[in-house]
């Protein structure tokens, strides 16, 4: 079966037309728009993990949560971004006694290490 796409054939660079205005986007349209960008980001993530491997010493909670967050990508449900964010989030509900820093590092240090 011929693969249909709204990418115009034989163009050296992607050229797009817009047959889906006002309708649910077609999956191939989404791939046409974002595949190369997502591919590049995925390779960047792989290279980052290789870089961590090649370095010496221990990783910390940030990398543990990074690896947990990757598991969210294996889901076939359309809430992967939400689950990646939750993998890095403080899961507790109570206020902390005192803020000893203003900064957030992107991953939850855990109650023992938290502020």
């Amino acid at each position: 079966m011929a693969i249909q796409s709204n990418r115009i054939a034989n163009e050296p660079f992607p050229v797009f037309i817009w047959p889906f205005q006002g309708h649910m986007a077609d999956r191939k349209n989404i791939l046409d728009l974002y595949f190369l960008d997502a591919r590049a980001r995925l390779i960047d993530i792989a290279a980052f993990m290789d870089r961590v491997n090649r370095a010496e010493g221990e990783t910390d909670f940030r990398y543990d949560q990074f690896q947990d967050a990757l598991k969210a990508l294996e889901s076939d449900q359309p809430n992967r971004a939400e689950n990646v964010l939750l993998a890095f989030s403080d899961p507790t509900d109570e206020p902390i006694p005192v803020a000893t820093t203003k900064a957030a590092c992107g991953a939850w240090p855990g109650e023992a290490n938290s502020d």
Partner: protein
Amino acid sequence: MVSRTTDDYQAMVMAGCQAVCEPAFWAGFDRSSAQGFYDYFCQLTQHEPRRASMFGLPHYTWLCINPKESEDVGLAEEVLAIIPEFMKSPNVLGIGEIGLNKNSRNEIAVLEKHIDLAASNDQLILVHTPHLEDKRKGTQLILDMLKADSRIKPERCIIDHVEEHTVRMVLDDGFWAGMTLYPETKCTSNRAIDILEVYGTERIWMNSACDWGNSVPLAVPKAMQEMKRRGKNASYVDQVAYQNPIAFMSQSPRFSEPEGV
């Protein structure tokens, strides 16, 4: 805009921006006294509107002590005491950006005082939700506090910096949701458009950040461009980028709808 150059104002006007809405913000360093805040509030209510007007841009602002400076409750109380004097200024839309940063007990105490100040003066509220790992918990704590005050009307509060894991709780409780577009933290244009596709276009807007750090004043016009690339029609883009902010801010008698291009 206080840390931005006139080049940014120029670019924003050329990109079609119709008004600027500037919340009181942390300076990147702690101000040492309430007097420092007094000067800052003068800048937000007097000097910056004049600077914006040189580019034909109406300038609106919000007043508060930012949650990043809320750990010192004594200083926060002094700053809260001078805010009413500035609330009469013609460009003040309300109290903001208030909220939490690390979700500490003192931050919560200061947020409570801000909510009371807004409620007792019938002001709109602009809420900053915490960064990164602190956002989910902080957003929930903030929503619980706002809901606990019977004087607060959710439709008069915008909860800013929502992402995929916090947008639902904000909208479900009847509040407005803001998506702040940043290159790395918070939300990218594409994710903001995804959120619009999933949650719809009611009670939600996007904003560009124009602060002293790495931020992109033209992020909203760029997101509008991206919506067009995804095939959204002109009325959809107009609704999200223009009509929704007007609908929210028009709840303040100080806000005048821009004349348009």
